[in-house]
């Protein structure tokens, strides 16, 4: 009993002191003291934490560099793969646009049947403006068939194998196409040149040729179907002492960048060679 009383008293005193301290703390009497203590604690913890992290960094950096290098290599490979993919997709978009234009052209001209082809090469000789396409007699291609793009006349089939054909472009120096000037309503002869430029010859001196006049195939001679677009007149040369006028033509087709063409497969060229009179011996 004697021993329990002081214990009870002790408990009561401690409780009262505790309540007193809580009351003082709630009353704000310890704020300056707690602030200084907490600042010291936070500062000390910050220092300890930063030192710990520095030590951890020091111990783990070599392994991280190796892994980062490996990751960098992987990412570089990924970037290269994606760049290749982007280039391929851009190429596919370009091809799709060209093919879409060709399909539109074919739909707009339902009187003809077409066979699309890819240009796979050019003639090895620089004197000739021929291109090679990837379809041949197996696809129904025959010699003399006209070839177009959505922008106009390209040329005609010159030689055929089973799986490839050779086209003579209208820019070839030996090419001659009978054409008509749409506004002037006069016929002329479209010829190529070694530079790839197109010009009109055999234009009558009586005709007034205007710049910008559209040139279409006339169908005369049976080599090409009529009304295929060729280009526009960009300059006219008219000299009084010459029999005919001449004109330079700006073609709509870029013959140096040909990728896809369409062969008109339902057109049968007429061979008029036997009808041309020959000189008697």
């Amino acid at each position, binding site marked *: 009993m004697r021993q329990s009383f002081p214990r009870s008293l002790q408990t009561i005193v401690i409780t009262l002191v505790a309540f007193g301290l809580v009351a003082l703390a709630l009353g704000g009497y310890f704020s300056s003291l707690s602030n200084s203590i907490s600042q010291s604690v936070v500062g000390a913890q910050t220092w300890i934490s930063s030192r710990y992290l520095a030590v951890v960094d020091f111990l783990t950096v070599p392994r991280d560099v190796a892994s980062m290098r490996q990751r960098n290599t992987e990412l570089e490979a990924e970037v290269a793969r994606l760049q290749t993919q982007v280039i391929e997709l851009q190429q596919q978009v370009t091809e799709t646009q060209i093919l879409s234009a060709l399909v539109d052209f074919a739909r707009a001209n339902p009187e003809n049947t077409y066979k699309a082809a890819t240009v*796979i*090469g*050019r*003639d*090895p*000789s*620089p*004197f*000739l403006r*021929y291109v*090679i396409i990837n379809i041949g007699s197996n696809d129904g291609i025959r010699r003399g068939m006209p070839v177009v793009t959505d922008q106009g006349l390209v040329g005609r089939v*010159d*030689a055929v194998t089973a799986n490839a054909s*050779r086209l*003579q472009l209208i820019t070839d*120096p*030996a090419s001659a196409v009978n054409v008509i000037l749409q506004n002037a309503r006069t016929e002329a002869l479209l*010829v190529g040149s*070694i*530079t*790839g430029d197109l010009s009109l010859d055999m234009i009558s001196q009586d005709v007034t040729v205007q710049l910008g006049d559209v040139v279409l195939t006339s169908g005369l001679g049976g080599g090409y179907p009529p009304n295929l677009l060729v280009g526009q007149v960009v300059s006219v040369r008219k000299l009084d002492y010459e029999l005919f006028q001449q004109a330079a033509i700006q073609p709509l087709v870029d013959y*140096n960048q040909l990728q896809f063409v369409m062969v008109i497969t339902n057109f049968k060229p007429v061979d008029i060679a036997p009808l041309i009179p020959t000189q008697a011996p």
Partner: protein
Amino acid sequence: MAILIAIPTLLIALMLQSAVISRINLLSGSADLVLLILAAWALQGRIKNAWQWALIAGALVGFVSGLPWFVPLAGYLLVVGVARLLQRHVWQAPLLAMFTVSFVGTLFMHLLSLITLRLAGNPLPFGDSLSLITLPSILLNLFLAIPVYSLLRDLAGWLYPLEVEA
């Protein structure tokens, strides 16, 4: 072995010529890879089948090109002839011989093409052809002469290794 490798080599050269080289133009001229390969091959002293290479090349190009078939055949045979001749006389200066064969071979090939096409009715003006096609082609061929010669020298060294005397 060497004649067996002629067909794939010349076929690849012709494909490159048609698909790539012919699209790289200087004015209206372009290099002739097949001609350069034949010239470089014929200038290798150890080889003995340059004439067969010329026949194969002439046949291949004659088949693909719009030129009459005998033009590339005759042109390439002459290139090999000039190369063999020079190889015997100026063998100590192979690069000089390569440049000479490229120049003379291109000039002859183009003259032969020009004359044949004109005879066939193709209205090719001589002066323009020379200035716009032949001279730029010669320049391009001279540019390509050294790399092609190096490649063909390595190929010849691989096919005809030098015999070491005991």
